[in-house]
């Protein structure tokens, strides 16, 4: 049996590594496991950073194909943060029964849960439709919780709006513009794009700062600035106008998809001097892969509600349990007003979201069509990149971030640069030292971004990628990604 401790234990939990080994051993002795299965078990002990997430305290991940060879029969993931004293054994028995029905003494998986979809890559899971609903109906969610979404962020505010960070960004941009002027390459218009503008606070601070600096230094660059505020929500763009009202002459408001800004802004190909994004990549559709015994697997998921939660929600909202899945579908299609009383609809939405879990299975990548992977990651490229990685590793593919990145870089001018504030994994070893999502942040999904794959992609596109720690807030996990031209 392999026991992987995927975090640096700092806090006490309801179970220890020793408890888990002892419990599994007793299950073996009692006939709940076969000797061979015990020997091939891979047990991962995690500390799920996000209080709200998609996992049970104990989760079993099985391989979809029985004949893949080399893979342990199943993996067991124990969340040491969720597990409570005395619950380890029943949780283990409950979780392992469906993966091993012939030895289990519990009902099969589908009896203790209400399934919301079939197994599929995470990027297409129903979970992202909830995420979409959240951003489309943010105001209703906020009304119901009584707090703004930024308050749910670590530190209670967005790192995008940190005045010193914005100030440094302004100074960097001014330096670039100055250099362009020195080299007689100053364009008549200086395009700046922010994707995912939220309340427009950062855009407002940036424009205030640039105008002030420009005045102080007497350079008169400000009138050349064309600041594009981009977001996929027209309502968000509308709300952002208040924050930049002193600079309306300089601003344009563009509805765009962060996955493909080029589609909307193709007329600005090679023309934008600076593009900024904060906490956009961590909220784009993603999926994970795992390498086990030298083979690559895609992690497929299936969303469900645990039966006890489903029963409770159905009862509270006067629904038959069998109608729950249909009701959730209507919520995602029509929004909370489907319930007539919007507040009640939001209540239903929040409860379903809080209860929703993701079951996982591994599918060997060799058995998937080539288009299942992003174009940057064909098998040979992926193998090349993974040479540096630990032999057994589970990592984010960051499908959405890669797509966005690929469709953003062509907008940059010859001296232009992209700056992204987000949560990045920048060393393969980090994946063995902690859980990096997906988690739930209020009504949205949060996922760390695989900076290693972005770096490789950037290099092939002619950019070097750098990651600097966000030093403006103590304890921040945010990094600042920025690009430089590659020779």
């Amino acid at each position, binding site marked *: 049996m392999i026991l992987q401790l995927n975090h640096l234990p700092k806090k006490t939990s309801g179970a220890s590594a020793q408890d888990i080994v002892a419990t599994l051993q007793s299950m073996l002795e009692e006939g709940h496991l076969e000797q061979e299965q015990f020997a091939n078990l891979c047990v991962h002990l995690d500390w799920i950073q996000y209080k709200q997430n998609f996992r049970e305290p104990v989760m079993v991940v099985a391989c979809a194909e029985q004949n893949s060879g080399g893979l342990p029969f199943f993996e067991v993931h124990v969340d040491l943060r969720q597990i409570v004293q005395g619950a380890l054994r029943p949780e283990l028995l409950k979780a392992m029964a469906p993966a091993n029905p012939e030895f289990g003494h519990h009902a099969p998986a589908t009896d203790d849960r209400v399934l919301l979809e079939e197994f599929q890559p995470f990027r297409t899971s129903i979970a992202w439709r909830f995420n979409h609903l959240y951003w489309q109906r943010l105001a209703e969610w906020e009304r119901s919780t009584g707090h703004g979404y930024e308050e749910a962020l670590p530190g209670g505010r967005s790192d995008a709006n940190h005045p010193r960070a914005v100030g440094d960004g302004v100074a960097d941009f001014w330096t670039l513009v100055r250099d362009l002027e020195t080299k007689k390459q100053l364009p008549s218009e200086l395009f700046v794009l922010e994707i995912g503008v939220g309340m427009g606070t950062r855009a407002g601070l940036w424009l205030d700062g640039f105008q002030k600096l420009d005045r102080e230094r007497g350079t008169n660059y400000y009138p050349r600035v064309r600041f594009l505020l981009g977001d996929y929500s027209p309502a968000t763009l509308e709300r952002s106008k208040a924050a930049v009202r002193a600079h309306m002459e300089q601003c344009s408001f563009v509805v765009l998809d962060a996955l493909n800004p080029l589609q909307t802004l193709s007329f600005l*190909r*090679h023309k934008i001097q600076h593009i900024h994004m904060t906490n956009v990549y961590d909220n784009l559709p993603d999926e994970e892969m795992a390498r086990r015994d030298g083979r690559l697997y895609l992690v497929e998921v299936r969303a469900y509600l645990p039966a006890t939660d489903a029963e409770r929600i159905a009862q509270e909202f006067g629904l038959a349990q069998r109608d729950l899945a249909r009701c959730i579908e209507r919520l995602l299609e029509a929004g909370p007003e489907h319930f007539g009383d919007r507040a009640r609809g939001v209540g239903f939405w929040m409860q379903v979201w809080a209860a929703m879990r993701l079951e996982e299975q591994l599918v060997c990548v060799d058995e998937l069509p080539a288009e299942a992977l992003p174009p940057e990651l064909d098998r040979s490229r992926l193998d090349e990149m993974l040479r540096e990685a630990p032999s057994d590793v589970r990592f984010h593919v960051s499908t959405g971030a890669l797509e966005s990145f690929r469709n953003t870089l*062509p907008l*940059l001018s*010859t001296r232009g640069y992209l700056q992204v504030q987000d949560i990045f994994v920048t060393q393969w070893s980090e994946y063995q030292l902690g859980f990096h999502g997906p988690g739930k942040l209020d009504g949205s999904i949060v996922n760390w971004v695989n900076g290693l794959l972005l770096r490789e992609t950037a*290099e*092939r596109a*002619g950019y070097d990628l750098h990651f600097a720690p966000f030093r403006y807030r103590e304890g921040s996990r945010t990094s600042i990604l920025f690009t430089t031209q*590659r*020779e």
Partner: protein
Amino acid sequence: MKLPILPTSVVGSYSMPGWLERLKTEYFARRISRHDLDEIHDNAVKAAIKDQEAAGVDIITDGELRRDNMMDYFLERLPGVQIDRSSKKFYYDFYNCSVQGKLPMAALGVAGDFQFLKNFTEHEAKFCVTGPHALTKRIHNEFYPNEEALATDLARALNLELKELVKAGARIIQIDEPYYSGFPDDLDWCVKVLNTLVEGVDAKIVVHICYGNRYGKPTWEGSYRYLFPRILEAKVHQLTLEFARRGGEDLDLFREFKPPFELGVGVIDVKTQAVETADTVAERVRKALEFVPAERVTVLPDCGCFHLPRDIAFAKLCAMVEGTRQVRKELGQ
């Protein structure tokens, strides 16, 4: 070989297939042999020749598929240039290289690659050589007093190679100088060095100057105005410039300065995968003809098709040929 009016050509590189990129990188990782890579290159070049011929291009190249990039192919063959072979991870990366003493005067030995091209086509063939100014910018100079001195010796060595190419049957040689646009202040000495490079070379000399195409994106911005009037002193036959991506504004310079050389007009934007229609190409050619007579115009893409997928590159060349044919018809040809 008689060429039609408004002959079509390519700037040099053809689409680099993903499989060839991987195999080139495998070679650097010592997982395939030089012999195998040479055979792979031969076959890739034959395919590139066939594509250009099938598209109907009049003056073709070998697609430059043997080259890792436009610099290293020459730098690693230049006697006296020290190459750090550990400095490359991906085949397309540049080597770090230096010059620590006076360059010996010897040819580079690339004429064989031109001979290979000639063996497999009946079309007019062109060979492209990276110019001394661009090569100088990639070399860490530890010997010469300044860049001009290094570039002049590079030009002398390359001159020997150009003469070897002529001996091998090359009648059109293109000199690629994309770094002119990034270092316009160098132009005074660049033209002198260019003339040293082509001295006594009995071939049609084309000079290609663009705004960069590394990784399929522009490296610099600006106007070709910086070239004039100094470039008029260059002893070359044709200037090949990009106009599709940047628009035709700078065509006016040909009316203003009436240069003694022909114009190679870029009508295909190689930095986008959107395929031009033949009508768009025809419009761009007609625009060029407002400034330069048809007898002195060659039609090309803006730059090499290296970064375009093969099907896109082929479709773009087909559009270029078809659009040019439309204009020829209008001219009664």
